[in-house]
């Protein structure tokens, strides 16, 4: 059984290698190959899961040691895998949703002549992500960590001819690099503290070092998580990442990669448990991002960016939960899984809508689509209900548990966090309802397709005739089926997990679980959750359901305008980092040329001038040379005489 673990990673990796090096002759079958390998990986995952489920809870963790990676004096880094319940959860999520989205992409990328490469990148991503969750030490995890970063870079920038896409890709990679810095520093700290960075030894011996050190490690890990999971203050890249093809947004920037931060924190639970300050920082980051994303989501008219904001906020929930410690870990992961379902579904739905609307992304130019694309409408609707936490659907269970746990943290912190979580739930309901109404209800506000030359944002290969009105149509089966599957998942997932605390028991061995006791009864929490949800929906209905939606966005309040600009985060980055950096580098180039180089050239120049002056003495008259000779002779004699005298 153990040997299968490597296959999990190997299958998609092989796919990536073949597809990227294969050349054009694979164009015809490339997408099928990619999908097949993703599916194969999923099958392996299922087999392993069956095997694991068969064992009793204590002996479920299995590992596989491939080879010694970097053997250096006192520094042991191996390529070794560890598969426990936590990893397994992720494996199933990644490969499952991944396979579905592969299938979806077959249809979605049908007209793109670089489809083979797209599938190559997707496979590369799967491999890296699986490596991330299967690694048994932090360094190997780091490899997967950067690997998914690379895949996301390639996929965001897949339409490289669009400058916006290229820039977004670069931005994503850079911001992630800042996070990676945190991770690598954390690893160094572990090495200097524990002499190793394998999960086992490190997490077991947390008791043997000071809390300060653990806090430092924890904060560094948090920084890494912020980068990957788009948490404040490193959240700015996620919005732009929507430049990528929609399946990418669904898989990488909603379901899997962005949740890697949550995985990292839950995985390093012992460290955080022993470092309350770090934990507090995590909860704070989570809470802030939760609101931040939600507010941004309310203001965006671009459907994908609205969803991106929601993703940010939902991951905020997870981070918050992860920050709560044992009472939260399980729910963080649970929300992560359910979110994986419904958010992927929502994105795929959005993609399907764009597909039918000539790639229009502005929701103000949608409207009344429900009768044109029923399947999309239904699946999207179910996802919607799930995310706002409609009772009975998956989002309801997971989110409700998180809010409960937040209250359970106790003390003022508990109240604050719980309150924030509740508020977030309300806002979630608001903006998701907004999306829903603007897209599928109301009158049809369709606009003629833009001229692709003027607006390069149109995805290539999809035939768009400038000026032609969109004629929405349901997407092909190959796209709708994955959406249906995901919808099913997002409906029943939560219930399946929570009934009888299945999920808790499943994960408990890995992330020990403690039942939190909120100051107010769980029922009250649930009630209030539902209440705020209803309020949010109602507000949204008043705003967008009753009145017609203007095609051109109104100027809006100060907050709205700020939120449209992602609460000025990019402006801040631009002014502080980009401008400052430009000035710094420019001045440094100048310094290098004038100062460092100038010193040398200056010396040379002085020499030249000096010799130029000395040259005057050489007047070319033999007699004056003779004089100097004669004088020299005299001096020599004087010298000898003096020497003899002395």
């Amino acid at each position, binding site marked *: 059984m153990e040997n299968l673990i490597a296959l999990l990673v190997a299958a998609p990796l092989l796919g990536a290698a073949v597809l990227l090096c294969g050349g054009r002759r694979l164009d015809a079958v490339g997408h099928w190959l990619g999908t097949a390998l993703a599916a194969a990986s999923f099958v392996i995952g299922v087999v392993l899961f069956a095997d694991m489920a068969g064992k009793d809870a204590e002996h479920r963790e299995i590992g596989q040691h491939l080879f010694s990676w*970097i053997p250096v*004096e006192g520094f042991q880094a191996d390529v070794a895998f560890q598969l426990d319940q936590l990893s397994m959860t992720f494996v199933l999520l990644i490969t499952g949703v991944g396979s579905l989205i592969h299938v979806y992409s077959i249809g979605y990328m049908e007209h793109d002549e670089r489809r083979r490469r797209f599938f190559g990148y997707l496979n590369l991503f799967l491999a890296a992500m699986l490596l991330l969750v299967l690694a048994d030490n932090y360094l190997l995890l780091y490899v997967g960590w950067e690997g998914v970063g*690379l895949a996301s870079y390639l996929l965001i920038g897949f339409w490289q001819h669009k400058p916006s896409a290229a820039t977004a890709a670069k931005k994503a990679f*850079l911001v992630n*690099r800042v996070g990676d810095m945190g991770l690598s520093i954390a690893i160094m700290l572990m090495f200097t503290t524990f*002499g190793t960075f394998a999960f086992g030894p490190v997490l077991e011996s947390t008791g043997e*070092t000071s809390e300060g050190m653990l806090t430092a490690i924890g904060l560094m890990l948090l920084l890494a998580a912020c980068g990957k999971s788009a948490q404040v203050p490193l959240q700015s890249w996620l919005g732009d990442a929507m430049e990528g093809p929609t399946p990418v947004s669904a898989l990488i920037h909603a379901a899997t990669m962005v949740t890697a931060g949550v995985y990292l924190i839950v995985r390093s639970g012992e460290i955080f448990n022993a470092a309350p300050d770090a934990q507090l920082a995590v909860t704070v980051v989570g809470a802030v991002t939760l609101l931040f994303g939600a507010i941004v989501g309310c203001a965006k008219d671009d459907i994908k960016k609205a969803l991106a904001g929601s993703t940010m906020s939902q991951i905020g929930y997870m981070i918050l939960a992860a920050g709560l410690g044992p009472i939260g870990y399980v729910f963080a992961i649970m929300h992560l899984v359910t979110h994986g379902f419904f958010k992927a579904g929502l994105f795929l739905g959005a993609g399907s809508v764009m597909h039918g609307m000539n790639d229009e992304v502005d929701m103000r130019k949608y409207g009344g689509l429900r009768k044109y694309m029923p399947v999309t409408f239904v699946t999207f609707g179910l996802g919607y209900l799930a995310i706002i936490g409609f009772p009975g659907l998956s989002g309801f269970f997971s989110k409700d548990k998180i809010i409960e746990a937040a209250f359970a943290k106790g003390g003022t912190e508990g109240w604050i966090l719980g309150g924030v979580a509740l508020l977030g739930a309300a806002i979630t309901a608001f903006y998701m309802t907004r999306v829903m109404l603007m897209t599928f209800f109301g009158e049809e506000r369709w606009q003629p397709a833009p001229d692709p030359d003027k607006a390069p944002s149109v995805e290539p290969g999809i035939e768009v005739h400038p000026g032609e009105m969109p004629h929405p149509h349901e997407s092909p089966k190959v796209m709708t089926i994955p959406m249906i599957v995901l919808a099913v998942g997002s409906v029943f997932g939560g219930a399946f997990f929570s009934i009888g605390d299945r999920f808790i028991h499943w994960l408990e061995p890995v992330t020990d679980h403690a039942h939190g006791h909120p100051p107010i009864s769980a029922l009250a929490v649930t009630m209030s959750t539902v209440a705020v949800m209803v309020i949010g929906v109602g507000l949204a209905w008043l705003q967008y359901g009753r009145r017609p939606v203007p095609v051109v966005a109104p100027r809006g309040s100060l907050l709205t305008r700020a939120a449209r600009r992602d609460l000025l985060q990019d402006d801040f980055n631009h002014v502080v980092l980009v401008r400052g950096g430009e000035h710094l580098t420019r001045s440094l180039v100048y310094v290098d040329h004038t100062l460092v180089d100038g010193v040398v050239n200056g010396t040379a120049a002085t020499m030249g001038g000096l010799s130029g002056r000395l040259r005057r003495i050489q007047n070319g008259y033999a007699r004056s040379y003779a004089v100097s000779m004669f004088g020299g002779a005299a001096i020599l004699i004087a010298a000898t005489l003096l020497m003899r005298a002395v």
Partner: protein
Amino acid sequence: MSFLLTATAALPALGAIATAAVPAAKRNAAKWLALIVSLATLVLAAIVLVRFDPGGDRYQLTESHAWIKDFGVRYELGVDGIAVALIALTALLIPFIILAGWHDADPLETGNKRWRPTQGFFALILAVEAMVIISFEATDVFLFYIFFEAMLIPMYFLIGGFGDRAHEHGEEAASTQRSYAAVKFLLYNLAGGLIMLAAVIGFYVVAGHFSLQTIAENGVPEMATSTERWLFLGFFFAFAVKAPLWPLHTWLPNAMQESTAPVAVLITAVVDKVGTFAMLRFCLQLFPEASKWATPAILVLALISIIYGALLAVGQRDMKRLVAYASISHFGFIIMGIFAMTSQGQSGATLYMVNHGISTAALMLVAGFLISRRGSRLIADYGGVQKVAPVLAGTFLIGGLATLSLPGLAPFVSEFLVLVGTFARYPVIGIIATLGIVLAALYTLVLYQRTMTGPVKAEVEGMPDLRVRELVVVAPLVVLLIFLGVYPKPVTDIVNPAVKQTLSDVQKQDPKPEVEAAK
């Protein structure tokens, strides 16, 4: 006593003479001859690699003959793990360099029967190879010094004599800038060399011999602390110029910018390595105390190199200059690793020398192919290449990712080792150095974005993708980058014992992890 090492160095030397002697009309014969010789050298280097026993004595395959008796100068060769690795690297890169520069020295107007520079170009490359290899092998300080300096002569002609075709300011400006760069290169390195010569003589006065092998047996000669420090500085200065370390770096950007891509690779990937190698072999072994004394200052300089080089790379408009400044940043890492005085740091540094050689070669050579197509080094002149020449763009990206040391590619291993090794002893410096990771990503990705992505520029339209020859050059390098990134064990196994030795020379132990220390 085998003559394997002598042969390894002598073969390219003879090859150089033979190549230079090829008659003017037989230009291609010269190219093929040079290529074959370099490949044969590669075979010899491989034999050295096989014959070398990592577990064995410190210096192996030694040769020792009296040379200048009066000054105790001996013709003494011998290799330790570090030297073997670098010899292998050199012998490996030269064929690619020759192949990449296949047309760089062709006559401007075809049918020029009397054109000889082609022969000269390849002969000079082989000559450089010979000198580099022997200076890796020399265990006699004086012998090393001679070739350390002699290297400059062929390099001078390579830089000053051969530049990019179709320079933006016309051939006149090009040649003047070339000669400026060449002279600058020569003066900087000569200055370093002369100071080193003084130190070498001083060392002879103190020690009475030049032989490292003797030192390995009998230990370092007794000398006064101040003497040792002065001598150390004399040696280190020369190596720092060659390496190059901030603020002695300014010759490198000019040299790399003006010379053709293969020569630029020769400079930064092969010749400069002698500097860092010599720090490990001579500075640390001959003057352990002084090395420890100077460590803080050197680490700070290295740190400055890392950040400074990266920042300047971001600010460059010329892609070759950009790569040059990136190299300065990487050399900062190497030197930092050497003087961190931990086994991770030094193994990392040695590994870094190898990996940096390969990654820079990949990036620079692809950049060279790009430049040869468009005839301009300015980043702004490109755009959207990825669409017309995907393979070129792909290899360029891989080279770039290697430069920013992406995990999974070779440089990551070495860079991380260096960082860990430094961090273990000097946490603050280690943390600041990690900033280099972010900056590296910045300049690499900006370069890639500006040149490869975006709408296709008119000048770039119809640019041909990599040709077979170019593919033959790049593909092995890429494969090597990935292989060494996933499985660096072969190299580390060779390097580790030598590093252990060096550390024992300076009597330094790795700092114990806190947990064990507590126990």
